[in-house]
């Protein structure tokens, strides 16, 4: 341990993404979610429970605000016309609802990272906001500073809480990830265990992952294929093509769509103006104008 060591470590995990010193290479994991395809069915959320050992907290704790769904499906009522953002005041929601799958946006300049006193949440070279459970002291500062409020704190020791994982149910747990004990923060990881397993497996072959070789659990299950996940710097990847087609730039804080009134585009990032540079692009839901 030395100061040299400190400084080296420092530059290792404190890159000024996305515009800074070290470019992502060979991976930059990103997502796009097509809200016109998403039906709000919740299958992705359940998949996340299954894949990531999320505890079912029960009615009481859910009521207390202690739910742990890394992927939550938000339901909004649409606005009256497409230019207004005010909610509809009509008698019936005759334009249906708006569903939004919301999980950690893996911000490139993540507000949660800078504030963590122990560096338990930080950025990986492949552009993930990682969470080191073992290092977390539970200060919850990261959650306080996350604009999207997608961090979930272990308010109780769920592994030992009654009826969370009764005897047989523990056998369902995914051994590729830990169970989180009380007092640590957790959140969507882009199913990092799958990414790492994939990376390892192709390393032996001396190549990088191809599009589709790693899928997140939510993407994999989604019946409408609303979720696309992949390597943004791989021009062959669907996610890359979608971002490109929507002219959404990782490093921009205002996208084409916002600049141009009749762009015909529908790609945007949420709370872009905060300059957290999220790695998730959403595509607006389309609504037929003829009916």
């Amino acid at each position, binding site marked *: 341990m030395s100061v040299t060591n*400190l400084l080296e470590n420092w530059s290792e995990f404190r890159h000024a993404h996305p515009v800074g010193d070290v470019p992502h290479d060979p991976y930059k994991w990103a997502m796009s979610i097509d809200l016109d395809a998403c039906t709000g069915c919740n299958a992705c959320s359940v998949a996340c429970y299954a894949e990531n050992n999320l505890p079912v907290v029960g009615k009481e704790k859910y009521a207390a605000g202690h739910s742990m769904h890394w992927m939550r499906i938000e339901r909004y009522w649409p606005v009256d016309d497409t230019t207004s953002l005010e909610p509809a005041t009509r008698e019936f929601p005759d334009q249906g609802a708006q569903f939004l799958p919301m999980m950690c946006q893996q911000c490139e300049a993540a507000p949660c990272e*800078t504030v963590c006193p122990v560096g*338990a949440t930080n950025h990986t070279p492949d552009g993930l906001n990682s969470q080191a459970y073992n290092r977390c*002291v539970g200060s919850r500062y990261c959650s306080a500073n996350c604009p999207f409020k997608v*961090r979930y704190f272990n308010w109780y020791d769920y592994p030992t809480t009654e009826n969370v994982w009764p005897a047989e149910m523990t056998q369902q747990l995914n051994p590729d990830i830990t169970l989180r004990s009380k*007092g640590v923060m957790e959140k969507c990881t882009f199913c990092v265990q799958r990414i790492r397993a994939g990376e390892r497996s192709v390393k032996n072959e001396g190549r990088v992952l191809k599009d589709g070789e790693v899928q997140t659990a939510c993407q994999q299950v989604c019946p409408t294929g609303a979720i696309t996940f992949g390597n943004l710097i791989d021009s062959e990847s669907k996610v890359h093509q979608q971002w490109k087609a929507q002219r959404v730039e990782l490093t921009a804080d205002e996208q084409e769509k916002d600049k141009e009134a009749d762009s015909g585009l529908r790609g945007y990032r949420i709370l872009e103006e905060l300059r957290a540079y999220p790695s998730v692009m959403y595509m607006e839901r389309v609504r037929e104008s003829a009916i």
Partner: protein
Amino acid sequence: MKDINEDIAWAKINKDVLKSLESPRKLYWVILAVAIAMISVAVGCEVYQYNMGMGVSNLNNPHVWGLYIATFIFWIGMSHSGTLLSAILHLMHADWRKPIYRFAEAMTTFSLMTAGLFVMVHLGRLWQFYYSLPYPNDRGLWPNFQSPLLWDAMAIFTYLSSSILFLFVGMIPDLAICRDNMHDGWRKKLYTWLSLGWEGTDRQWRNFRITYLTIACFLIPLAVSVHSIVASDFAMSQQPGWHVTSFPPYFVAGALYSGCAAIITLFIILRYTFKFEEYMTLSILKKTVRLTFAIAMIWTYLNAIEFASVWYGHDQPSKDVLIQKATGPYAPFWWGMIFCGSIVPLMLAFKRFQTNIPVLLVTSLLLNLGMWLERWMIVAPTFSHGYYPWTWDHNQWPSWVQWGIVFGSFGWFTLLFMVFCKVFPSVSMYEVKEMVYHRSRATKKLEASGMQAKGAH
């Protein structure tokens, strides 16, 4: 109005102050017992929370901070009183502070110790708290120097150690007096050890004064920085209602404000409990009250600035938080803060209240209630009404565990403070003597020149 008697004999000063180490009123023991009872409530709550998990505090996602952080800031704020009186006024040669600075300085230390507890109590994994310290370890792991929370830890630690040093150094001549006046026993040993062989030689006095002044100079920027850094926990974040540039001075003003108010409260209590009427005179009280009033107005001004800048700035989320504070479920507390913090102190502008002990006791308590509410209103509403509407949570209410620990913290502070007053001279004997000496000389001079004495200034 009666001020310190200029003819008072030095021996009497010693006797009076040393008496506080021996025979306080019965009330002292009552306070002690109540304090211990309060602490046991907090300890019970903490044991429960430690075992069950933070969930029992009723904090939730996204409402992750609550009374613990609010009360933490409150205690940090409290700590500023001591530094203000002992260091700032010392540098400004404000004589009147001398009889009361010692206990104010003790307040600083004990408030910081109380504040520190809240950092611990608030951690999800209290048992791993040391991860946030920059200690050498095998893995070359360092804390995150970017995090204001880390700066906090370091600032508080520095401030605490410095103020302990300052308190101790300032006490050395008095500790020698204690040593010389005590019968054999553990106290004598303690004082002997702590007074570091003080004999009152010229050289000792000279070194003493230089040291004391140096620490005082060192302490002032520390005090300002510590609360500025606490303010950074919020101002450096990206949250509406928090990322306010004026937070550091605002926090410092709030800190001085609550510190002054607390001095008034403790002044009144100590004066009665330890029979210090002779030294803690109403004229000193009056000066403290005026100072408090001035700070109250500064705080009010900074508050107004904050509201105005939010209002005229174009940041809608911040504005929404402000509106939410004034009209939402927190409105009673928010208006309570305005009332206690800006309206109640107007009382202090009236001369007849400036020495009215019952009124001042109530007022000072109200001011501190206001200052506590201020901290709560900084912390909580942003969580209820942040950037992301889906997660707005307007029903969050702290559980009895949170309240219990906040309640107990006052007991903890009181206990530390009361024990201190019983073990160490809470009025600085040598400085009172100096003050009396200087004043009587000044009076004599005046008399000699045929002018009338007009009370001390």
